[in-house]
């Protein structure tokens, strides 16, 4: 059973992280590894595409909290796109909309980065 999968690609000089499956305390370390590599490669502009994510727990949300400041300190950010209402509700319960930008689709989130630069 593939319970979680994460892949990265570039879209107009922005790094897109695609999430698939179930993101919990078991699978969150895989996502941490991806963010660590992005920082090592000095890739600070990140859009996380949630289209294929079925589930998230606070262990998954914690990953975004742990890495966002490094991205912002380096003129980047972590922006979210394609989130289902079910997943958005969890982010909303924890107050994430105060500190993170959410976009309906990936293109819009990528454009937002390119507007600024």
């Amino acid at each position, binding site marked *: *059973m593939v*319970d979680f999968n994460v892949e990265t690609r570039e879209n107009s000089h922005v790094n897109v992280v695609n999430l698939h499956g*179930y993101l*919990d*305390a*078991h699978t969150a370390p895989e996502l941490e590894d991806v963010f660590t590599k992005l920082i090592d490669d000095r890739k600070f502009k990140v859009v996380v595409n949630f289209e294929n994510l079925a*589930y998230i*727990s*606070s*262990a998954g*949300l*914690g990953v975004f*909290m*742990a890495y*966002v*400041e490094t991205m912002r300190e380096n003129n980047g950010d972590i922006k979210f796109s394609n989130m289902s209402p*079910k997943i958005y509700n*969890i982010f909303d*319960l*924890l*107050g*994430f909309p*105060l*500190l993170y930008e959410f976009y309906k689709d990936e293109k819009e989130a990528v454009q937002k980065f390119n507007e600024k630069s």
Partner: protein
Amino acid sequence: MKTANNIFEKELVVKSTTDNLALIRDFTKSAAQKCGFTEETIDKIALAVDEACTNVIKHAYKFSPEGDIIVNINVNHSKMTVSITDHGSNFDPSLVPEPDVKKYYRQHKIGGLGIYLMRKLMDEVNFNSVAGSKNQVVLVKYF
């Protein structure tokens, strides 16, 4: 909301490893489905139970894989009660402050989100701890 017309009790005992979280969620969802909860409520209960068990693995057993997590589900005419018991280190949830995402951002702090989520997702969340013996989290959802 359809009222459950069946009364039942189920128990799952698993080792304290994160790869068991999916199994624990499936066990919880299948019981919640039998109660007639909506899909949305079933997802909330499964997430709350995941958060409770994640806390047990991280805090009570400190990632040691040898501990037991006992998930007991009891359904009666009015509610579904999920009790999560462990025999790890004592844990005082009253010491966990309500998270403030802005403050977390400034302090680079993560964690503490699970208990807050559990309280938001369930109707009741109670912690019982017997020093040197067991910790128990009791999650309740009314029909």
